[in-house]
């Protein structure tokens, strides 16, 4: 098996089970995007510095670019697609739209997943908590104020649907 090994893994992504074959050198992000066509999580830095690839893995916010697909065998994942779609936006997604917290949108899926994790673990964050919770997510467009506003508005609303 030495160098051409292929590994069979099972994943649950957005509540849907998958059984797939992966190469050891492929990251979870590669597999989500290229094999499963789940392209919400983005690759930007690829080294854990920008947060564009943020997803929930067994309930924890993680950078999918820093996890091997084979390592994720058996895990339960939620990506931005799992929160809601065009016709049924989640409260957080709706808040981003309402607050004008999206410009080019490249950071948004990761930003929202990090924000969702924050709200799941701390339903009543202060502004400082939100800033800290999003410290691993870079946005080159919005200047962050509207993103923070959006997250705070949902937190204060208290009707977040937690997947």
């Amino acid at each position, binding site marked *: 098996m030495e160098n051409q090994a292929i590994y069979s893994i099972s994943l649950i992504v957005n509540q849907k089970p998958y059984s797939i074959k992966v190469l050891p050198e492929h990251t979870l992000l590669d597999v989500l995007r290229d094999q499963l066509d789940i392209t919400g999580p983005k690759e930007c830095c690829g080294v854990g510095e920008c947060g564009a690839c943020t997803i929930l893995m067994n309930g924890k916010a993680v950078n999918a670019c*820093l996890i091997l697909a084979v390592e994720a065998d058996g895990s339960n994942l939620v990506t931005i697609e799992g929160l809601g779609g065009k016709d049924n936006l989640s409260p957080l997604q709706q808040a981003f739209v309402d607050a004008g917290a999206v410009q080019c949108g490249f950071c948004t899926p990761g930003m929202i997943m990090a924000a969702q994790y924050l709200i799941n673990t701390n339903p009543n964050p202060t502004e400082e908590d939100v800033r800290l919770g999003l410290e691993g997510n870079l946005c080159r467009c919005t200047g962050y104020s509207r993103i923070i506003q959006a997250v705070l508005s949902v937190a204060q609303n208290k009707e977040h649907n937690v997947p």
Partner: protein
Amino acid sequence: MRTFSYLRPTNLSTLFAMIQKSAPDYRLLAGGTDLLVRLKSGKFSPNTIIDIKGVTELQSGINMEGSTLTIGALTNMATLESEKSILETYPALAEAVHNVGSIQIRNRASIAGNLCNASPAADSAPALLIYDARVTCISARGERQLPLAEFIVGPGKTALAVDELVKEIILPIPAANQAAAFTRLTRRKGVDLATISLCCQVNTSGITRFALGAVGPVPFIVEEKEGILTSGTVSLEDKKACISELMEKATPISDVRASKEYRQAMLTVLGLRALSTALERLKAIQ
């Protein structure tokens, strides 16, 4: 990333057998937050990756028993920073790990991985040094314990043999008459490596210790035993001068984060800051 064989043992004896078969061209995978970066850059290109997350004897966890606290190798930073026993008994450690990367990183990064990378800037190291951490290393040949100061031997170098790994980190319960605080200088909060990371511990016998990271090839401790820094009557100016003299033992380099002159100057500032927090904490428990 170059391809490799991926192995995931479920117990120590299988792990040792795999190590024996693969050594020296293998890497252990825990959280992966540093390893994947190096695999991607090509800095590491091992034939075999052994994922140790499934090894039952190495599970994560924090246990206080008798006069020590044991931190399992696989314990991640997010667990450490929020664990009650750490927050209450080792606050400087909680502060230090809270500063590692982002929450996405801390949810994965393991304490053993952070130490094994032996980065001069590893944030956990100064706090663990201040609390007199020991590292349990294991291999098929047996177990041994090393003081942390002997475990990290150079930038990126540990005392681990090629077939050895970290099993746990052991902290003695600190004496009742001490208090410690952590502080850190970075260009950007979140994700950036420390420009300086520093831990200060004071006790009621007048001993002040500073553990310094990112200002020398390895994290290390400097001490002041005359009671100058803990004194209520010595002037701020004299304390500054005293810290500045202690900090001369540091050998910072210039890099993308800061010049060596800036680091040297900031050591005194950070030292004073951490000292005042530590002294406040000491007062609060007296």
